[in-house]
């Protein structure tokens, strides 16, 4: 039996999704992607840099990768929808990561605006992966609105504090019928492994790799951790079921 991850009708071969922001340079990014056979790569949309000789990031991302543009910069649903449409017009496919942040202090996603944007964009045929604050009700609404997956944050963007929201993500993993992909805040390979052991379908990592001394090696470490976590989950993580004798046996009366 194969361990398949299917999103938007496409089979995703690597559960390690890579973000491309904050890298020291495009070469470092390219090495990280090819070194790990990354399948899904996020990008952003910005006003184009018209300096002569400006590099086009797409030249450094293998054509076989799935591009996942995000709507970073959007402060409400309308802005997210606009960015999504622009991204689609650039010819990179119909996947979109909805990221609506109106709080500039913690950069927390606005679930309500995200749900609105999800509804509009999924009707337009986008494969929508919304970045969200882990909330079961919001997650259900996102799925009803047409989301192909949900992307709960592990901890605030860039904080690299790991899986602070583990308990809430665990609930989503139990209840969601779509893939749960942890995004934001994953700081160490062990954080990624933890997310996968819990049953998450994939992990999106950006900052931790981009700012590492050696991004290519760090990416490989994450790649291994994510595969290890997934294998551990599939094999059934066991904790001992009652070792030692309890002070009062509960089934002794049967004898």
């Amino acid at each position, binding site marked *: 039996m194969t361990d398949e991850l299917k999103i938007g009708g496409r089979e995703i071969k690597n559960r390690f999704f890579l*973000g*491309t*922001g*904050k*890298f020291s340079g*495009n070469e470092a*990014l390219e090495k990280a992607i090819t070194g790990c056979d990354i399948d899904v790569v*996020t*990008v*952003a*949309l*910005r*006003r*184009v*840099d*018209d300096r*002569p000789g400006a590099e*086009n*990031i*797409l030249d450094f991302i293998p054509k076989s990768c799935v*591009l996942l*543009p*995000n709507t*970073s910069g959007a402060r409400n649903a309308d802005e997210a929808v*606009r960015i999504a*449409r*622009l*991204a689609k*017009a*650039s*010819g*990179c496919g119909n996947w979109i990561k909805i990221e609506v942040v109106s709080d500039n202090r913690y950069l927390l996603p606005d679930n309500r605006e995200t749900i609105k944007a999800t509804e509009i964009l999924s009707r337009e045929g986008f494969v929508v992966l919304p970045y969200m604050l882990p909330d079961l009700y919001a997650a259900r609404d996102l799925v009803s609105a047409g989301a192909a997956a949900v992307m709960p944050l592990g901890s605030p*963007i860039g904080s690299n504090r790991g899986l602070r929201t583990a308990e809430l993500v665990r609930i989503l993993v139990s209840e969601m019928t779509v893939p749960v992909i942890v995004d*934001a805040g994953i700081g160490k390979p062990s954080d990624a492994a933890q997310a996968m052991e819990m049953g998450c379908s994939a992990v*999106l990592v*950006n*900052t931790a790799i981009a700012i590492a001394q050696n991004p290519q090696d760090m990416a490989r470490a994450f790649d291994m951790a994510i595969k290890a976590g997934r294998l551990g989950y599939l094999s059934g993580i066991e904790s001992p079921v009652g070792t030692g004798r309890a002070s009062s046996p509960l089934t002794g009366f049967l004898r």
Partner: protein
Amino acid sequence: MKLKINGKDEEITDAKTLGDLLRQRGLNRPTVVAEHNSVIIARAALDSTELKPGDIIEFVSLVGGG
């Protein structure tokens, strides 16, 4: 004429269409998307989109992001 391009007011004298503007700036590549007064303009329509004073134009493209 005065146009707003990527958020900045600019005085443009030698471009009549969006296509002209793109070529002038070396942005005539498939991954650049042009938005003219909040409407996304398909590549095929760039040369037929005339510029008028007060137009708001955005040129966007994919860059690195998380």
